[in-house]
C-alpha cells in the first residue's frame, strides 16, 4: 500500500458514509471516554482505546459511538479508566479496562445494555468533582 493523500482519505470517508450512518442529536450519542493522563498512559490506556476502536469497527458501531480522550479522572489506582455514556442507562466509570475488558464493554454494555457490575467505579474521585 502506498501513502494515502488527504484527497484519498476524503474519498474513503465518503464511501464509508452509508445510509447506516445516522448521527443523532447532541447529547444522545453513546460515548466512550478514555482517561489519558500520566496514570492512564502508563497503565496502557492507548491499547484499551485501540481495542475499543477495533471492537466497534467489527460490530459495525463505529459511526454511532463517540470515542474521546480525557485527563486523569482521579482514580489512578484503577487505570486504565473509561467512562461509558449510553442514553437511557446510568453513566458509569469502569476501572482496569484492558483490551479484553474493552471488548466486553462493547458487547455487554453498548450492545447488550447491561452493566459489568464488578468493574464499576461509580464516579470520579471526590477531589476531582468536589474541588477540594
Amino acid at each position, binding site marked *: 500500500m502506498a501513502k*494515502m493523500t488527504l484527497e484519498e482519505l476524503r474519498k474513503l470517508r465518503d464511501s464509508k458514509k452509508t445510509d447506516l450512518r445516522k448521527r443523532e442529536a447532541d447529547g444522545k450519542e453513546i460515548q*466512550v471516554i478514555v482517561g489519558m493522563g*500520566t496514570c492512564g*498512559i502508563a497503565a496502557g490506556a492507548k491499547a484499551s482505546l485501540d481495542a475499543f476502536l477495533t471492537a466497534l469497527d467489527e460490530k459495525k458501531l463505529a*459511526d454511532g459511538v463517540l470515542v474521546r480522550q480525557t*485527563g486523569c479522572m482521579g482514580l489512578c489506582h484503577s487505570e486504565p479508566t473509561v467512562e461509558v455514556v449510553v442514553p437511557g442507562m446510568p453513566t458509569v466509570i469502569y476501572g482496569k479496562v484492558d483490551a479484553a475488558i474493552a471488548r466486553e464493554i462493547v458487547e455487554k454494555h453498548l450492545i447488550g445494555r447491561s452493566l459489568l457490575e464488578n468493574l464499576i467505579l461509580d464516579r470520579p474521585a471526590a*477531589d476531582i468533582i468536589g474541588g477540594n
Partner: protein
Amino acid sequence: MHFSLCDLAADIAQNAAESGASVLEADIAETDTEFRFAIADDGKGMTESQLERAKDPFHTDGKKHPGRKVGLGVPFLIQTAAQSGGGWDIRSRPGIGTTVEASFDLGNIDAPPVGDVPGLLRTILLFEGPAEMVLRRSYNGTRGRTAYEVRKTELVEALGGLEYAGDLVLLDTYLRSLEEDDEETDET
C-alpha cells in the same frame, strides 16, 4: 514509568494540550539508533521557578487535582533519560509557551522500546485543546525511509471530525499508510 518512548511523548504532549495553547507542534524523528521528539506549545508557559518545581515528582500546582502532591509527567521523562543515557531539555517562558525536547539512544539496553508512532500521532490529535496541531514524523533506517507532516485542521476537514470511532479508524488507516516507504510511493 511509561512502557514505551511513544507513551512518554504522549504524556508530554498532553501537558502541552492542557497548557491553553492554540497551536501544538510535535516533531518525532527516528533512526535505527536514535529516537528524538520535540513538543512545543504556545500556552501559558512557566517561570524558571515553576519549571524547577515541575521536575519534582512530589510537586503539582494543585489546580487539576486539589489536594494531590504528585505530578509525574516531567519526572518520568527525566528519569527515563537519566537511566538510559538520553538527553532532555525544557524551555519555557510565561505567556509565550513551552518546548520539551528529548533524545534517546536506542542501542542502550535500558532505553524503552519506541512503541507505536502512528498511534502516538493519533493520541496527540485526540487531546482536547489546541485548535491546530502540526505533527511531523520522520524515520530513516533499515526499514526504509519516510517523512511526513499532518495538520489537525486538514484532518478534521477531510474526515468531517475526529470524534466518532469511525473517523478514528480511518485516521489510523491514513496515518499507517504514511509510514510506508517514500521510495515505494514514488514508484507507484
